[in-house]
């Protein structure tokens, strides 16, 4: 196995045993990026200090092996979605408006990873401003799906997801507003974890829809998702919406799901799903049952309603958040906005405007309450909710052009949980025509441990997450 193919856990073991250095590991990732980035278009900007930082990590490892306690991700190279501010390193959110933007400060997530000893390789491609579910909406061209380059990797964290499955990095960071971690994880065949809203700081993340934006990891397995979440989660005085609840996560160990009560909403097997995807999800449900889980079919609000609620809330919040870009203090003027940004900002302007506020915005927020109440009721009787992440496998490059609600449809099955601020995981559960399918495992707010435990137990029983594309 090549070094860049390692998981975090195995890379840490190798570094501790001095089987290889962080410099070796970082070089292996950079070589893979050099070899494959031209075709995949995953990275927009590389960190020129990556090798220097790796050497520094090696010095720390040489000095005291106990440094791994102080720096839990010491020497591990990773990729960061380009909407996380990195002081001194260009950050564009894949939007030409910010083409020349060099942040003067860093996001909390980046700072925490740096303080944990992780090595930033570079910044990954995404849908511009995180508007989309394909990474085709990037102002810098689409990222290609490493399983089949005629297909999209999903989005908006598509660059991060593709970088992980292409072994260009050991792990990556994404952010999710409604599906932007879990859906690209599903389409690219990696593990994607969305912590509870407010569990991970949004400080220094270019704002999209502030009431749902949630940063989280994209990794090669669930254990790695745990290792990263433990570092980035927790209260941040710089983000007033972060929870002051202590992060008490422990490494998932269980191989059994005995005692787990899991709900499968019948509405989540939607009519738009192809039969192969449905069969794969049914097989995954059986696998969970074989592990000891009790799975019951329940009824939740038709997810098609979530598309409507999400469309209104997201457009409204976007119209407010993108108001700040005037090209005066940083970036280019508003004439640099692409069509999709104009589309979202202006629709949001409409839904918030006098006469339409109650009809659209306020009404959507009320339906959101109904969704939250339904989830609360479900979690009184069940530990977790499962279903597909997306209606089918990755669609072809060019698919977004034909449908203005493309993204909303691909995220239909994760929108309600995002709007309710829940935590959720996407784990690979099979393949359709050589393209991965994701199973979502969703938990109540702050039920990260349960979700990770279930995901880990599942990954002990199957091997879909171990498969790699030939690039």
């Amino acid at each position, binding site marked *: 196995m090549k070094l860049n193919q390692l998981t975090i856990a195995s890379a840490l073991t190798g570094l501790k045993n001095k089987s290889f250095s962080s410099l070796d590991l970082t070089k292996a990732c950079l070589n893979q990026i050099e070899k494959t980035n031209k075709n995949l278009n995953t990275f927009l900007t590389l960190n020129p200090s990556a090798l220097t930082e790796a050497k520094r990590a090696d010095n720390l490892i040489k000095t005291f092996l106990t440094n791994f306690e102080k720096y839990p991700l010491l020497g591990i190279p990773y990729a960061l979605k380009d909407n996380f501010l990195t002081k001194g390193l260009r950050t564009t959110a894949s939007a030409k408006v910010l083409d020349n933007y*060099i942040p003067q400060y860093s996001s909390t997530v980046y700072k925490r990873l740096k303080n944990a000893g992780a090595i930033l390789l570079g910044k990954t491609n995404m849908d511009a401003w995180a508007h989309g579910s394909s990474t085709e909406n990037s102002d810098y061209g689409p990222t290609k799906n490493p399983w089949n380059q005629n297909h999209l990797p999903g989005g908006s964290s598509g660059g991060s997801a593709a970088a992980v499955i292409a072994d260009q990095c050991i792990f990556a960071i994404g952010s999710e507003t409604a599906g932007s971690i879990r859906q690209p994880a599903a389409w690219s065949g990696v593990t994607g974890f969305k912590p509870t809203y407010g569990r991970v700081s949004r400080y220094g993340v270019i704002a999209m829809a502030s009431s749902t934006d949630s940063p989280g990891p994209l990794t090669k397995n669930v254990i790695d998702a745990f290792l990263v979440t433990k570092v980035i989660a927790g209260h941040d005085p710089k983000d007033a919406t972060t929870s002051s609840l202590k992060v008490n996560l422990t490494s998932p160990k269980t191989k059994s799901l005995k005692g787990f009560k899991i709900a499968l909403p019948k509405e989540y097997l939607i009519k738009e799903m192809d039969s192969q995807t449905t069969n794969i999800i049914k097989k995954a449900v059986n696998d969970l049952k074989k592990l000891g889980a009790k799975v019951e079919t329940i009824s939740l609000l038709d997810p098609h309603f979530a598309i409507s609620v999400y469309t209104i809330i997201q457009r409204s919040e976007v119209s407010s958040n993108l108001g700040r870009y005037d090209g*005066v203090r940083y970036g280019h003027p508003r004439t640099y906005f692409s069509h999709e940004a104009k589309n979202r900002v*202006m629709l949001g302007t409409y839904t918030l405007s006098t006469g339409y506020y109650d009809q659209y915005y306020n009404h*959507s927020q*009320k339906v959101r309450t*109904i969704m939250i109440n339904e989830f609360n009721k479900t979690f009184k009787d069940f530990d977790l909710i499962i279903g597909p992440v997306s209606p089918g496998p990755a669609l072809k490059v060019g698919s977004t052009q034909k449908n203005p609600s493309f993204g909303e449809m691909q995220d239909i099955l994760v929108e309600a949980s995002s709007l309710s601020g829940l935590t959720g995981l996407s784990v690979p559960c099979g393949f359709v025509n050589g393209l991965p399918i994701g199973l979502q495992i969703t938990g109540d707010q702050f039920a990260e441990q349960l979700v990770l435990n279930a995901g880990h137990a599942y990954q002990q029983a199957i091997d879909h997450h171990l498969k790699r594309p030939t690039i």
Partner: protein
Amino acid sequence: MIDINHLANLANMKVSQEEGKKLENGFKESLKSVDLLNKIDTKGISSSFQVTSLKNIYRQDKVDHSRCLTQKQALSNAKKTYQGYFVVPYVFS
């Protein structure tokens, strides 16, 4: 009735006539699908503008110097500056 020019003006976006038509058609389609929500009775239901249940998060009224930019840093991304200030476009004609 959607007045694209008015919306573009409110959102401070430049939109060509052709693009305006495309946007208008897209909005109509989006709003038509959003009208699905009218099927849901929300009488007596309150709005969830946020999901944290947090209220009034205060901090000490003290300057956190680690969060302050120097004047040089603050101006570092600006295209036009004048004696330590940002140069802004004319607002009044």
